[in-house]
């Protein structure tokens, strides 16, 4: 029983971080049709922004989360304003933006490396201490990560499903031309989506850095896993990304526990291949079917 609780706790903690990363990535793909290779660096910058502020003036956790989200949102908006919007209407947008954001990620990583060096700093904004659930030690930080992810994902779901703003995002994602005909400023929607996804990435970066350490490359692994999650869920499917993040993290946790941590990700990738053979559009992806 303890083993199962341990697997669930670890899986939910990892799943929370994956979900924060994957939901943002999926939101951008679903709305702009853009795979953001710099999403991992958005996470890294969120984590370093909190580290910098906290080192300078000291930050309580809640303010740390605000700073991470603000930093992520700012870099998301800057990416849109300085790069994405000029490429949006290019004929090979999906390929061009993949290369452009990969380039941006390299530049940003180098900048972080130049500014902070490669030393793996610990993230000062975290909560120490443990509690016991069914005999299993669970860190308060894991509980915080779970709570933050739950609040953020519920807030995004509410925003997308229950607000006019969310309706405009979904409408733009489905049919940009028709959204424009309704009076939606699609350029502003894209900017807002980049800010929202950046904010989620920022807070994901903060949460990841509280469990590991800060490093310029810290966003690489979560980006890869978020990408895998998005593909398994069906690219652009925000809800599917959230569900798959937890599903795959629980699987990774179970495999890591029974067979060793090094097998977690390879098995996850094998599962992806099987899923994509079985359902090429992903578990939640659907072909656009319109009744005639």
């Amino acid at each position, binding site marked *: 029983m303890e083993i199962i609780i341990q697997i669930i706790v670890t899986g939910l903690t990892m799943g929370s971080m994956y979900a924060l990363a994957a939901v943002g990535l999926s939101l951008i793909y679903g709305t702009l049709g853009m795979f953001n290779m710099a999403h991992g660096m958005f996470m890294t910058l969120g984590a370093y922004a909190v580290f910098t502020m906290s080192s300078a003036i000291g930050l309580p956790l809640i303010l740390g989360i605000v700073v991470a989200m603000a930093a992520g949102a700012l870099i998301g908006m800057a990416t849109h304003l300085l790069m994405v919007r000029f490429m949006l209407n290019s004929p090979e947008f999906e390929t061009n933006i993949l290369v452009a954001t990969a380039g941006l990620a390299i530049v940003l990583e180098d900048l972080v490396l130049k500014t902070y060096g490669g030393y793996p700093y610990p993230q000062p904004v975290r909560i120490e201490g443990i509690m016991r659930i069914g005999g299993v030690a669970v860190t308060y930080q894991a509980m915080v990560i779970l709570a933050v992810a739950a609040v953020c994902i519920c807030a995004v779901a509410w925003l997308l499903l229950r607000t006019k703003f969310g309706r405009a995002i979904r409408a733009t994602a489905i049919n940009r031309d028709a*959204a424009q005909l309704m*009076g939606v400023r699609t350029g502003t929607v894209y900017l807002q989506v980049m800010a929202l996804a950046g904010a989620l990435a920022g807070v994901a970066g903060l949460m990841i850095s509280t469990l590991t350490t800060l490093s310029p490359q810290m966003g690489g692994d979560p980006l890869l896993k978020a990408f895998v999650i998005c593909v398994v869920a069906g690219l652009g499917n925000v809800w599917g990304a959230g569900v798959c993040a937890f599903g795959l993290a629980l699987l990774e946790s179970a495999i890591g526990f029974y067979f060793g941590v090094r097998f977690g990700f390879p098995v996850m990738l094998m599962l992806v291949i099987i899923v994509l053979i079985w359902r090429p559009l992903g578990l939640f992806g659907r072909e656009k079917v319109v009744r005639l």
Partner: protein
Amino acid sequence: MSFLLDAQDIVSGYLHRPVLHGVTVQLAEGEVLSVIGPNGHGKTTLLRTLSGFLPFRGGTLSLAGKRLETSSIFARVEAGLVHVPQGDQLFTEMSVEENLLMGAYLLPNGPEVDRRLDTVFTLFPRLKDRRNQPTNSLSGGERRMVGIGRGLMADAKVLMLDEPSLGLAPLLIEQIYEALRALRAGGRSFLVVEENPSRVMALADRLSLMDAGHIVWSGTADEADESRDIMKTYLGGH
């Protein structure tokens, strides 16, 4: 005479292929104008140019006295020029109600939006029964009703409808045109583009015949009746 919609000498097209060569369309308040003509002669291009998807290479556009030919799509919608495009262009994974609410996107949430929703449901009662259904599960006729209803939700001074009867069964076309007649009786101003003039003859105050990017004939429905030879020449016996 001052026109609500006054578009003069429009020159427009796609990249290096000019389609419209000095087209003028004018619409008075409460009037229904129909632009008819064979396929591929610029009717849809005209609406796409008026709504801002294609740039004006020449000519002017004003709505209620406000110049709009260089304005963005958003500014034109905000000014009250609303385009219901060909082929529905619905938000397929969203419900009927959400699609209709998108039509009122520029209005603040409140009783006015609810009132307009009621008006659309009165005009198309079938949509009320399907209000929570995703639009990709609707029939072609129902989707067309959502498209028109969505246009009606907007604060339109002029509604521009692109081939509202295209691809529909005769019974559904009749239902759509019954709704359009109700709108006309309510004093709405709209511009309808149709390939087949037989339906719009009874609806429109005036008709303009478009051929190869030119307006080659304009007149009332009665005058069109008297000009059957012209119609036959351009439309092939409609």
